[in-house]
C-alpha cells in the first residue's frame, strides 16, 4: 500500500509563524494517532536548538525528529502555505512547502525520501505543488502524479 494518504494534505491560507506551520503539519499526523504532541514539540525544539537545518531546498522544509519521541506509525504530511513562512531573517529560509516526516526506524522511510527528493530536483514539480489553489487540488496533484 502506498504511504500517500490524502487525509495528511492541507493548503493553509492564513499567515503562520514557522512554529505554527510545523504544528499544523504535525497536527495532520497527530489527529489520526500516528504521532504524539511530544513529536511536534521535539521538532520545534530541534530547530530552536540547531537552527533551520530542516530547510532542505529553496522553499521546502522537512521537519522530523527521532522515532523515540512519540511516533506510533510511519507517516508523511504535506502542507503548503499560501503565505510563505520565515525560518530566519535570511531569505534562503523562506518556506512554502512543509513535508512532515515521521519515521519508525532509520531505513523504512527510504522510499519516501526518494519520492520527496524527486520533487525537490524538479522546479516544475515544486511550482505545481506550491501553486495548488486548495487542499482538494493539492490532494489531487499528489495522488495523481507524485506518489
Amino acid at each position, binding site marked *: 500500500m502506498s504511504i500517500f494518504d490524502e487525509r495528511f494534505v492541507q493548503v493553509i491560507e492564513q499567515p503562520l509563524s514557522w512554529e505554527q506551520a510545523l504544528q499544523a503539519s504535525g497536527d495532520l499526523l497527530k489527529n489520526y494517532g500516528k504521532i504524539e504532541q511530544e513529536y511536534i514539540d521535539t521538532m520545534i525544539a*530541534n530547530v530552536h536548538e*540547531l*537552527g*533551520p*537545518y*530542516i*530547510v*532542505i*531546498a*529553496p522553499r521546502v522544509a*522537512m521537519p*522530523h*525528529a*527521532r522515532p523515540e519521541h512519540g511516533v506510533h506509525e510511519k507517516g508523511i504530511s504535506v502542507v503548503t502555505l499560501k503565505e510563505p513562512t520565515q525560518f530566519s531573517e535570511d531569505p*534562503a529560509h523562506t518556506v512554502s512547502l512543509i513535508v512532515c*516526516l515521521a*519515521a519508525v526506524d*532509520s*531505513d523504512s*522511510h*527510504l522510499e519516501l*525520501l*526518494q519520492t*520527496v*527528493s*524527486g*520533487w*525537490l*530536483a524538479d522546479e516544475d514539480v515544486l511550482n505545481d505543488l506550491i501553486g495548488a489553489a486548495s487542499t482538494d487540488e493539492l490532494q489531487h496533484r499528489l495522488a495523481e502524479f507524485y506518489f
Partner: protein
Amino acid sequence: MKILAVCGMGFGSSLMLKMTADRVIKKKDIKADVEATDIGTATSMSADLILTNSEFAKQLQGGNATVVAIKNVASEDEVGKAIEEYLEK
C-alpha cells in the same frame, strides 16, 4: 574518497544528500564512499568531503575535511560541483 552527508538527525536530509551523491558518483564514475550521519557524530568521523547545510557547515569547518554547504539536497548539479571541486584541488 570518503564523503560524509550530515544533517541534524542523521536519517532525513543527510540520507537524501547521500542518495544524490550516490547518483552523481555513479554517473561520473567516481570512486567514493558516501555515508550519512548526524551532526553530533560527524565531528568525530574522518572524511575528505563533508556535504551539509549552511548551519552545520559553519560548525564543521576547521577540520581536515573540505566542507560544502548544499542549498538543495536533491540537486545533482550542486552536489556534483562540490565533488568535482574537491577532486580538482
